[in-house]
């Protein structure tokens, strides 16, 4: 395998290049260990898993010996599983929408202030994305509970009479997913916004554009590719999210990752769990390919008409 990747090394001018060539060859030797490790970690486990998905469960964690697509047929014809696929997709799309709505203005704001405050804010956001998830979920549980801050504030403001359920339902999961993706999106979009030259914004102001007009007619279009990329990233993360739906959904919101864990750990139905996982991965990959194709087409169109229309 490595031999295919390590391409032609002989150059046209061996006498002049031999020194550099030798050193390149020596550097290449370093690749053996990472390649072997990565390939082993990738190929063998996945292969076992894919094979498993084509065998029927016969109880006690055993699978039958015969090759069958029964697991896939079951998932794609059973309303229960189709609903789970729909629920996961729907929640991921909603969470992505809200996450972008929060993350892009935040990224823009942080990029516009400079110095220590910006560094501090970026550090806080980074910490929020890196500190282990259960702690975050514990905090959200306290905040969103029936006697939590959100409900008490709303009651004090007389917006609601009795506590509203923000946990163990789709709203809770949605809030958890937004919490999960927003920090990464802010950091990613911050890098995007930084590439927009400041003088464009200044030019817009000089010509009398309002803040709102500048934001929606200059900043957002300039960052369009980055925003699309961020949407895709957020969607991918949500489709694979496991801890937030499990805790904030209280076991009542069954997304694909939650079902996969239940099938494998609780029911020991390995075949079906494997098939569900493979469908999830394929579905997410397909979405990426479709969006990727759209982005490429859009880019090509823009190259043809550089000043947009």
């Amino acid at each position, binding site marked *: 395998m490595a031999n295919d*990747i390590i391409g032609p090394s002989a150059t046209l001018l061996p006498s002049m290049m031999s020194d550099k060539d030798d050193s390149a060859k020596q550097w290449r030797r370093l690749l053996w260990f*990472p390649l072997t490790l990565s390939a082993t970690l990738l190929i063998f486990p996945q292969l076992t898993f894919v094979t498993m998905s084509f065998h029927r469960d016969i109880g006690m964690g055993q699978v039958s010996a015969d090759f069958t697509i029964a697991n896939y047929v079951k998932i794609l014809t059973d309303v229960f599983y189709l609903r789970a696929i729909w629920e996961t997709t729907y929640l991921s799309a909603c969470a992505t929408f809200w996450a972008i709505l929060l993350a892009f203005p935040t990224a823009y704001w942080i990029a516009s202030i400079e110095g220590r405050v910006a560094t501090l804010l970026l550090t806080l956001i980074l910490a929020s994305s890196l500190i282990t998830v259960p702690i975050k979920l514990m905090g959200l549980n306290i905040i969103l509970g029936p006697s939590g801050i959100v409900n008490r504030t709303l009651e004090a403001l007389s917006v609601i009479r009795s506590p509203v359920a923000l946990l163990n339902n789709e709203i809770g999961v949605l809030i958890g997913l937004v919490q999960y993706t927003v920090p990464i999106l802010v950091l990613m979009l911050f890098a995007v916004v930084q590439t927009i030259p400041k003088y464009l914004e200044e030019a817009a102001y000089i010509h009398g554009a309002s803040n709102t007009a500048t934001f929606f007619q200059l900043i957002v279009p300039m960052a369009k590719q980055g925003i699309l990329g961020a949407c895709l990233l957020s969607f991918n993360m949500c489709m694979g999210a496991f801890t937030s739906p499990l805790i904030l959904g209280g076991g009542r919101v069954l997304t694909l990752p939650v079902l996969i864990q239940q099938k494998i750990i609780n029911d020991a139905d390995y075949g079906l769990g494997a098939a569900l996982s493979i469908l999830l991965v394929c579905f997410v*990959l397909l979405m990426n390919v479709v969006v990727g194709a759209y982005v490429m087409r859009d880019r090509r169109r823009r190259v043809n008409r550089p000043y947009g229309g």
Partner: protein
Amino acid sequence: MRPRMTTLIGILTILFLVSPFVVVAGASLDTGNVFQIRFPPHGLSLARYAEIHSRYLYAFRTSLVLGLTTATVATATGLMAALGAMRGRLIAAEALLSFFRMPLQIPFVVTGAVYLQFYYQLVAMTGFNPMNSLLGLLLAHLFIVLPYTISAISAVVPRTDNALEEAAETLGATQWTTFWRITFPMLRPALLAGAFYAFIISFGDVPVSIFLVTPTNMTLPVLIFQDMRFDFQPSILAVSTLVSIISMVLIVGIQKLAGLDMVLPPNQRLS
């Protein structure tokens, strides 16, 4: 400049992101032995810190050993991969790096399920069970963190100055000396950032580890996660607060050592 909508959204977003940690830390300081969580706390005490059960300390040690081992192996492997692909002047270097990034396409929960199945098969075929030791968790964690270390390091290798290395060699330094005195220091921020990501992902992981933990190999996040669901005790709040503080210190420390630019996540998950 006039106050803007974006500023307002930004402030609210940051409050939204930080509030869970503040609430947990606040509730951990509440007085008395009540099993009800109260925020804001009704009084201040460290009682819940004194109640921390020793199994959390064991789990913390397991997570620490696991995280450090994962980070060391992943960083060394990432360095070899990055140097081999970039310095080896491979024509297919980009394709090779995409191959290394493939695990990013697989949701963590699927990776956990995959490795559990793989270990079952391994036991059935060879009798060797990696889950009897930390090896089981280590291999799965390596799988998920390698893309991060390889991306972080390979992004910086082309920026290192080849002329300096050539100068060193012309002046008679051996290859080994050149590597340690010239190349390595130039790569140090990237290595730190890669190791940091590998550690923090491995240390905090739930979705992969939840499939692979055993009573003797219990990681701290999985223990917190399970106790939160099935056996809630107020001292979990204290443990969580301590973990948040340690993580925060680590994040700030790495940022000082390697620079903020290095620590901000590159957009690896997309490419």
